């Protein structure tokens, strides 16, 4: 599902509410038919949320960051798997540098590396393509496509279109009445 809208139209607020970080003023968000605050642990088990912030510790290196993040998610990541993952996404040589020495785009790629090992069914991504170079954008689109073809769901705000080979794409533009549904 693509979420679109001009700056300040509430895209991030909507995503944060969907993730359960904000409480909805009216209405209810349900997961599996139950309000998310009642099934919080089950819902968060199936959820991967990436906001504007990279959620990386500046003083830790990418490997430590990824392993820490995986541990909090109860989806442990072995050290050599983390190295392999970073090499796969083109960050070879940065594995043991503290994150504060990486460029903005590299930090974003480390943050997005979580997607490659995620077992969550629902991805909520806030502007995942910002600060990325062309090759990384392609890689990210590929991993989102793979996630969708496995039956996963993704809600994202973006100015780029992900080319889909199958499935249903829902385009929601904040401020307009009806979502536009397309079948690829």
């Amino acid at each position, binding site marked *: 599902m693509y979420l679109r809208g001009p700056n300040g139209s509430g895209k991030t607020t909507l995503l944060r509410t969907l993730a359960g970080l904000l409480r909805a003023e009216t209405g209810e968000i349900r997961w599996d038919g139950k309000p998310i605050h009642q099934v919080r642990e089950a819902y968060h088990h199936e959820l991967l949320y990436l906001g504007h912030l990279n959620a*990386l510790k*500046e003083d830790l290196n990418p490997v430590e960051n990824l392993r820490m993040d995986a*541990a909090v*998610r109860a989806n442990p990541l072995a050290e050599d798997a983390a190295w392999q993952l970073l090499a796969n996404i083109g960050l070879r040589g940065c594995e043991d540098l503290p994150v504060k020495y990486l460029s903005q785009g590299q930090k974003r790629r480390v943050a997005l590396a979580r997607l490659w090992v995620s077992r969550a069914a629902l991805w909520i991504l806030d502007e995942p393509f910002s600060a990325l170079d062309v090759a990384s954008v392609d890689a990210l689109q590929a991993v989102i496509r793979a996630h969708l073809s496995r039956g996963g769901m993704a809600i994202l705000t973006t100015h780029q279109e992900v080319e889909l080979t199958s499935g249903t794409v829902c385009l929601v533009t904040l401020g307009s009445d009806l979502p536009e549904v397309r079948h690829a």
Partner: protein
Amino acid sequence: MLETLAWIVRRDVTIALRRRTDVFTTLIFFVIVISLFPLGVGPDLDTLRLIAPGVVWVGALLASMLALEQLFLADHRDGTLEQILLAPQPLPLLVIGKVVAHWLITGLPLVVMAPVLGLQYDLSAEALEVMVWSLLLGTPTLSLLGAIAAALTLGLRAGGVLVALLVLPLYIPVLIFGAGAVEATTSGLGGSAHLSLLGAMLLLALLGTPLATAAALRVSSG
């Protein structure tokens, strides 16, 4: 679950060891406060022995308060707190991990330094030992109680002042019994009753405060 807790402790301690200034700020503050009193009060040993428990405990209390603001602030700024809030694990447990790490970084050094600093006040070996015990039981309680205030004031501008106002009333019982334990030992009554009460407070705080802190985090991040 306990693994996650260990990870959080390990992460925060690793970060603290890589940027040592944060650790030393608290410790140096503690050392300075306690070392200034003998200079200001004068070399009268009776007076020094009398004020020692209070001064050491007030120093420890202020030092731990000084460090509180940092407890969740860095995680809040870089977005890792969001990920902790969205973790598929009980939040109070993760909060305990954060507090344990915080105590290891800011509380434990005070406990270790206290007997050395206590020598300036001509305290007996026995009194020093009770002081270490009282700090060992009391400072984790301070960290646990303070975490609630730190969570509530997250993202506010004058957070530091507000934290102080919020936690001071909660800190006072710990201060009274902590300093009281040392005082009772120097006056020959024995500090075990005070220490037991400090232990009870620690257990109570360990049970109650993580829930309150977790709730406060959800409120202030929303």
